[in-house]
């Protein structure tokens, strides 16, 4: 299912956080959103998973304007792994993952056998099966992040949006997570800070700066020395990856403008 941001703008307290953002995420593709801190990446995502209503513009989910769908219905179509994944109460890992089924269940309706199996598979895929009965408050940041992705996966939505899903993960789990996204066949919109990971994992990239889309295209088209300098204020060398040939950025410590 396609995801399409169409002239999306968000104004909060007189501040323009996102300005006329248009971005297509074709069915089954992984599109990365990159940009400096405060460039509006998370704000744009929040409009997709209904935490925020856009001031103008539309988020299209397939043929539907997402704000016209009942929230429950849109949660069956769009799953999110948010940054604010904080859990205040001592749920077990298993319980948090099972809450991913909430949009499909009525009231306190129990999970079916198929749904329990789904949860177990997701936990195995994210390498948290052994933590099933641990309290989420006792987990490390990276373990917690994997729990939140498992929860988003069991939502069985066609579209997945993720806000910095790898920022607490060790390199092994970063690679596992992004490979999993690529192999999932889902339509994925993901905010990433690591440009090299973004280049390796995404079919296309969108670059945001001060709420505007300043570039979009394949990683090779987008990640140029000039764009990195203009957007991030960093002098980077772009070199081909020795194994995959994709663009990779190299920086030195004194390379900021």
């Amino acid at each position, binding site marked *: 299912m396609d995801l399409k941001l169409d002239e999306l703008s968000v104004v909060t307290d007189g501040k323009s956080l996102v300005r006329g953002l248009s971005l297509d995420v074709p069915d089954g593709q992984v599109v990365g959103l990159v940009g400096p801190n405060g460039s509006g990446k998370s704000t744009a995502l929040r409009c997709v998973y209904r935490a925020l209503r856009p001031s103008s513009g539309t988020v299209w989910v397939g043929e539907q304007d997402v704000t016209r769908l009942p929230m429950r219905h849109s949660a*069956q179509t*769009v799953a999110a792994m*948010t940054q604010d994944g904080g*859990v205040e109460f001592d749920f077990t890992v298993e319980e948090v993952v099972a809450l*991913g089924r909430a949009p499909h269940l009525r009231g*306190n309706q129990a999970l079916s056998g198929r749904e329990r199996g789904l949860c177990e598979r997701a936990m195995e895929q994210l390498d948290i099966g052994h933590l099933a009965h641990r309290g989420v408050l006792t987990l490390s940041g990276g373990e917690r992040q994997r729990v939140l992705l498992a929860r988003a996966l069991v939502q069985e939505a066609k579209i997945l949006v993720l806000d910095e899903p790898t920022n607490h993960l060790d390199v092994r789990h970063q690679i596992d997570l992004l490979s999993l996204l690529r192999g999932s066949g*889902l339509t994925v919109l993901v905010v990433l800070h690591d440009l090299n990971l973004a280049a390796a994992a995404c079919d296309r990239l969108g670059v945001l700066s001060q709420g505007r889309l300043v570039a979009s295209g394949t990683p090779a088209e987008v990640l140029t020395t000039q764009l990195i300098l203009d957007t991030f204020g960093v002098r980077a060398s772009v070199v081909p990856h020795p194994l995959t040939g994709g663009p990779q950025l190299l920086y030195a410590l004194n390379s900021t403008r």
Partner: protein
Amino acid sequence: MPPSSTSVSSAAGGAAEPAEASTPRPAAAVRGRLASRKALLLTCLVMAAVLLVSVVVAIGLGPTVVTPGETARHLWAALTGGRVGADEATTYQIIWQIRTPRVLLAALVGAGLSAIGVAIQAMVRNALADPFVLGVSSGASVGAVWVTVTGGLAALGIYAVSVGAFIGALVASLLVYAASSSRGALSPLRLVLTGVAMSLGFQAVMSLIIYFAPDSEATSMVLYWTMGSFGAATWGALPVVSVVVIAGLAVLYRYGRVLDVLSLGDETAASLGFDPDRHRKVLLVLVSLVTGVMVAVSGAIAFVGLVMPHVVRMVVGATHARVLAVAPLVGAIFMVWVDLAARTLVAPRELPLGIITALVGVPIFIALLRRRGYTFGGR
């Protein structure tokens, strides 16, 4: 659709952490949790039985001691319209007219406070919240004191104070709601802070009324409302309280999964298809009504609504449908015994309930805080 990347899953599950993977799962028993539905049902049945026995025992105890068997016989006679001997008329009066409504009210309020505590903590995402954090009890106190001092609502007779307290509770809730909502949103933190600030304001108003009060009855009224008592329990008020509390508990139970989702935070709630503000508004109305009614008949009994949710969560886990099934029973049992202690320990005088709940509740709370493995909502 579920992800189908088998290569990733086998790679991730296999070699990464073989030591951890081969360790047996930390069993549910380690955390002292009752995971299965059967165990939960059994717990509820046992608790219900304990509650029933507690009620009968508590009705029998007091200045006139009646054995549980005798008590049960009298209650049976009252319920089925049976006869008791003429020489037992006094005992019957004490049991049925005085103690039964009081013990039943204690059970209802204990159940209600525990369940409302669970709901409030989840909806404002704060483990230190209790049913009175939104200013309901201090608003009720203002209402009660106002009615006592001015003699308002006199037409309502013995119910004037309760009705005044209820009105005060509702006014307080409305004020807190109005002051904390902005552009249709109801932020949990703002709700708590507004409630705390409003509570202090209402307490000042109450002190002011007492300061200018011509009589001293208002002073004892303050003690009553800030500490709580079931001394005024009658059959007259019981139907209203039981309908409101039991209906409130039933609705709250149906909100179990909503509370689960709300306690994960607003962003997550939205992504799971739940509008957090809309649900918080509904819950706020429900919580205010039930708390208002309870405070109106018993005053503000501290600690029950704060401690019971934590005690229950430690045993059954955080899932709200389970917590909300057990917490009312535990709260009811606790309150029946607290009330018994209040009216028998220093008889013929009565201790305010809040003193006993605090004496019991504070050590439990501190012990909980210090216990390893239970994290409350922080690390």
